[in-house]
C-alpha cells in the first residue's frame, strides 16, 4: 500500500534545507528474566508460555525491579558518557492498547537513570559527536499478530492474536538530542550512530543487539529547516526502522519528501510514519492531532532506584575498552588505513582477527585469511563471519603451518575448506588428506626426473641457459604432485639435474 510521494532529488533538498534528526533506539537487554517478574526472556517459546500474573497484568499482581536490568542500564549510561541519577523513579505511561496487559507501560519519565551524554562516531574519516539526551529503563509490550487484513496492521484485520511472552522484557530507550550540522551526511551519521551504539551494546555484554531479531529497534525523527534558520521545522517520526541500511534510507527518503512538501509551499504534518523495506519509502501512520497525553505519574508500586556512587564507580572501572577506542588502537597496531579498517569492521571481522592474533598468528596473516578466503566463504553461504564453523585457534594453526612451510597458500585454502566441512583440526586434515608439501628430495626427485623426461625440448632450452624456462617444468612437477610439492625446492632440483646455475 505504498503511496506515491513527491520527492525532490537529494542534492536539491540539501541545497535548500538543513536536516535535523533525533534518534530513539530501544535495546532489549539480555537479562535471563523479565524486568519486573521472574519469567524467562528466551526467544522462540510457544505463545504465552513465558508469562505469570505480573507480566499478564492480572488483578493484584505487583512488579519487582530486576537488579541486572538496572546494572545494564547504568553500564550503558556510563559507556555513553552520561551522568547517572543518584535517585530516580519509574513512572507509568498510561494508554490503552491490547498488547499492553496493564494498559500502562512501566517506564521512566522525567527522572531517567542516565542523562547528558554523547557518542562519537566516524563518518568518512571525520568524527561526529552525537549528544545523548537520556537513557531510561522500561518494559517491552506483548506482540500482536493481526489476522485477515491486507496489511498485517490492526486496521482491516479480522482478529488479532496476542502473545505476552515479550511483555515485560527489559528495554533501554536511548534518545539523542537533536542532531544538527550533519548536512548532506545526515543519513550516514544516523547509520554510523546506530552501528556504533550496537557495537557498544555488544561490547558491554548487555544485549546481543541483533536488529533482525528485534533486539534493537530504531525510530527516526526528522525535520528540515531552511538553511540559515535557527528554528526547527515540524518533524515526522518514522517507527521501527530495523536495520542499519534502513536507517540510512529512511533519513534520505524523509529528507527528500520533506523538501518536496516544504518546497511546494506545503506544511509537514506531525505524524508517525511506517518504513517499507521493499523500496525504502515511508507512508503516513497515525496523525497526532494533539500531543498524546500519557498522564505520566510516579509508579507507586515500585520504590525509587538509588544507585550508590561507589557501585557506579565500580561499574565504571569494569567497563570494557569501548569499540571505537579499540578500533583506533587496533588500526594503529596493524598499521592499516581508515578504509581498510572500515572494511574489517563492516565484515564483522574485528573479533575473529583479534582472537586469531591472540592464538599466535601474525596480524597480517590473521587479517589476510579472515578478510580473504573466510569472508568469501561466509559471503557464499550467507552467514556471519563469526558464525563460520572454524575457530580462531584453527585459523592461527593454518597460519603457523604456512609459516613453517608445511603448507602453501593453495594447500592452506584446502585445509580451511576441510575444517569448514567438519573434517577436524588443521593437523588432522593435513594428515588425513595428505596435504603437506612434498619437499623430501627422493619423492620430489622422481617427479623432477619424470618432468625432464617428458619435456625434452624444455630441458634442452634450460641446458642452453634459458633458466626462465624452468617454470614450465616446475609447473609439470606441481601438476604431478597435485600441488603438494615445495615449488622452490623443485626448481633447485631441476636446475641441478640439468647442470645449470640458478
Amino acid at each position, binding site marked *: 500500500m505504498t503511496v506515491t510521494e513527491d520527492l525532490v532529488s537529494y542534492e536539491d533538498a540539501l541545497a535548500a534545507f538543513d536536516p535535523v534528526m533525533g534518534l530513539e533506539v530501544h535495546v532489549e537487554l539480555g537479562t535471563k528474566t523479565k524486568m519486573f517478574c521472574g519469567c524467562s526472556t528466551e526467544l522462540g517459546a510457544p505463545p504465552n508460555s513465558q508469562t505469570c500474573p505480573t507480566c499478564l497484568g492480572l488483578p493484584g499482581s*505487583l*512488579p519487582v525491579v530486576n537488579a541486572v536490568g538496572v546494572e545494564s542500564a547504568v553500564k550503558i549510561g556510563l559507556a555513553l558518557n552520561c551522568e547517572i541519577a543518584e535517585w530516580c523513579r519509574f513512572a507509568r505511561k498510561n494508554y490503552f492498547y*491490547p498488547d499492553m496487559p496493564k494498559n500502562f507501560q512501566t517506564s521512566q519519565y522525567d527522572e531517567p537513570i542516565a542523562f547528558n551524554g554523547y557518542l562519537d562516531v566516524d563518518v568518512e574519516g571525520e568524527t561526529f559527536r552525537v549528544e545523548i539526551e537520556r537513557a531510561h529503563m522500561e518494559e517491552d509490550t506483548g506482540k500482536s499478530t493481526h489476522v485477515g487484513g491486507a496489511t498485517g496492521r490492526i486496521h482491516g484485520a479480522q482478529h488479532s492474536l496476542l502473545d505476552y511472552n515479550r511483555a515485560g522484557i527489559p528495554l533501554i530507550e536511548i534518545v539523542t538530542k537533536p542532531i544538527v550540522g550533519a548536512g548532506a551526511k545526515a543519513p550516514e551519521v544516523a547509520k554510523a550512530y546506530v552501528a556504533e551504539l550496537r557495537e557498544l551494546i555488544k561490547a558491554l555484554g548487555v544485549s546481543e543487539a541483533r536488529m533482525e531479531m528485534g533486539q534493537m529497534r530504531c525510530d527516526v525523527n526528522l525535520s528540515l529547516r531552511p538553511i540559515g534558520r535557527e528554528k526547527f521545522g515540524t518533524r515526522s517520526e518514522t517507527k521501527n526502522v530495523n536495520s542499519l541500511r534502513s536507517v540510512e534510507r529512511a533519513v534520505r527518503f524523509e529528507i527528500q519528501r520533506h523538501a518536496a512538501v516544504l518546497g511546494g509551499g506545503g506544511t509537514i504534518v506531525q505524524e508517525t510514519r511506517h518504513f517499507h523495506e521493499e523500496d525504502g519509502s515511508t507512508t503516513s501512520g497515525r496523525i497526532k492531532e494533539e500531543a498524546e497525553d500519557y498522564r505520566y505519574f510516579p509508579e507507586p508500586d515500585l520504590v525509587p532506584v538509588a544507585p550508590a556512587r561507589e557501585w557506579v564507580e565500580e561499574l565504571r572501572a569494569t567497563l570494557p575498552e569501548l569499540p571505537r577506542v579499540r578500533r583506533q588502537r587496533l588500526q594503529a597496531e596493524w598499521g592499516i588505513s581508515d578504509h581498510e579498517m572500515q572494511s574489517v569492521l563492516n565484515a564483522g571481522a574485528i573479533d575473529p582477527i583479534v582472537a586469531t592474533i591472540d592464538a599466535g598468528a601474525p596480524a597480517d596473516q590473521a587479517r589476510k585469511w579472515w578478510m580473504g578466503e573466510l569472508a568469501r566463504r561466509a559471503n557464499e553461504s550467507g552467514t556471519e563471519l563469526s558464525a563460520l564453523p572454524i575457530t580462531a585457534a584453527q585459523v592461527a594453526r593454518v597460519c603457523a603451518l604456512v609459516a613453517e612451510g608445511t603448507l602453501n597458500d593453495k594447500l592452506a585454502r584446502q585445509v580451511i575448506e576441510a575444517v569448514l566441512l567438519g573434517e577436524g583440526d588443521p593437523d588432522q586434515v593435513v594428515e588425513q588428506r595428505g596435504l603437506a608439501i612434498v619437499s623430501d628430495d627422493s619423492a620430489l626427485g622422481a617427479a623432477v626426473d619424470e618432468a625432464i623426461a617428458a619435456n625434452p625440448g624444455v630441458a634442452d632450452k634450460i641446458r642452453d641457459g634459458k633458466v626462465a624456462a624452468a617454470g614450465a617444468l616446475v609447473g609439470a612437477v606441481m601438476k604431478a604432485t597435485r600441488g603438494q610439492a615445495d615449488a622452490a625446492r623443485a626448481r633447485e632440483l631441476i636446475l641441478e639435474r640439468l647442470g645449470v646455475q640458478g
Partner: protein
Amino acid sequence: MTDLTRLTAAETAAKIASGETSAVEVAKAHLDRIAAIDEKVHAFLHVDTEGALAAARAVDGKRAKGEKLGPLAGVPLALKDIFTTEGVPTTVGSKILEGWIPPYDATLTRKLKDAGIVILGKTNMDEFAMGSSTENSAYGPTGNPWDLTRIPGGSGGGSSAALASFQAPLAIGTDTGGSIRQPAAVTGTVGVKPTYGAVSRYGMVAFSSSLDQGGPCARTVLDAALLHEAIAGHDPLDSTSIDAPVPPVVEAARSGDVRGLRVGVVKEFAGEGYQAGVMERFNDSVEMLRELGAEVVEVSCPSFTYALAAYYLIAPSECSSNLARFDGLRYGLRTGDDGTRSAEEVTSLTREAGFGPEVKRRIMLGTYALSSGYYDAYYGSAQKVRTLITRDFERAFGEVDVLVSPTTPTTAFPIGERADDPMAMYLADLCTIPANLAGNAAMSLPCGLAPEDGLPVGLQIIAPALADDRLYRVGAAVEAAFTARWGHPLLEEAPTL
C-alpha cells in the same frame, strides 16, 4: 454446650489445640450460622464450604499426628473479596470481575492457609474498595448487625458485619482511607490498619497503591494481634513491603499497660459534623486513659484539614491507572463482542457495563487530575499536602506516643441516606484518611454506644510507622477497662439475629 460461634479466636484455637473441639466442628458451626442468617446480613459474596471443611480437616489431621499447630490453627476467617484466592472467585465487589477465578493466591491468602486458618468465604465490599457503606457493591448492600437497615461501614462492610453477627471470629480488611477502621467503628468490632508496607499487597487487587494496606479485623484486641502477626512480614513480591521484623503486637496486646504513656488528642478532629454522642463516648475514652495512668495532652495537626481533598486527588489518580487493565480482553466481563466490533469498542462497552457509578466517578476524577496542564495543580499539590501531613504527624509524635480521635464522625447511618451525596459519604473518612496519607499505623476499637441512637462508637488510636505494637498496648488497656465497666463485651448488646 458452648456456642462455638461466640468464642474469641484465641479461645477457639485453644479448644482445638486441647482437643476439646475440632476444627471441623468449629467450621461447621460457622457454616451453619452463615447458612442460617447471612441471607439477612449479606456479609458474604461467596461461601467456600468445601474449601473451609478441607482446611479444617487438614488442621485436625495435623493435630492427630501430633504436629505443632500455629496459634490460630483451625480458626475460621472471613476474607475480603479483594484478595486473590486460587480457584475461588474474586470479584472485588464489581461486575467487571464477575466469574473470575484467580490462578494464584495472594501472599496474605497463602499466609492464612499456612497458619491453618480456615477461610470460610469472601466478603462483600464497596466496588474496588471505593466507598464507606458497602452500598457501592455491585452485588447489593450488607446490613449492620446492630440494625439491618443501617450500613456496616465500608468498604469492608462484609468483613465487619460477619464479625458482629458471629459468622466468623476473624476477618481481613483493607484500608485505603479508613475501610478497615470505619466499618469496625460502626459495628462495634476491632480493626487495624498496620503501617504501610507491613502486610504484603501482592494479590490484593489495587485501588490506590500508595495508600492500600491490608489488615486484621476481629472482635477483640488480642485476636486482632494474633491475626496481625500471622499476616505481616516482608514479602519479596511486594517492593513496598517493609523489610524489618514485625513489631511485638501480641506481647503488647497481652500487656495493656499504658502507665506513663503520652496520649495526644488531635484538636482538629472535633466540631461541626461530629455527632454529640460520638464526642461523648470519645471524651469518656480519653478520661479512661487518664484513669489508667496515661498522660493526655492536646496536639494540633493543622494540615489535617486538607487531608480529605488531597486524598480525593491521589486515590482517584492512582485508581484511574490501576483499573485500566480491566478491558475485557484477558479476564472478567466482556461486553459487546459480537464479531463486528473492534477491541477498542469492546473495551469501551465492557467498562461502561462493568464499572459502577462511584468507580466511574473516581476514574474520571483521576484521569483529569493527571492530565497534562492539570497535573501540577491537582496531583502535584496533593502530594505536597501529603508531605505536610506527614510532617504534622512527625511533630506530634515528637511530643506524644500515640494520637487518639473518634474513628468516624457519626454512628452507622441508614442505607440509602448518603447514596446520592458523595461529599457526605466522603466525610465518613475524615478522621481516618491522614494515617493512610502518612503511612502510619492505626486502630479502631469499640468505646461504647451513642446515647441518642444506641449504636456503637469507635475510638481511633494512631501510632507512628513501625510502632504498631503501641496500638495494641493502648487498645488492650481501653478494652479491658470498658469491658470491666460494662460487665461484658460491647457486642453482647447487639440484637440477636
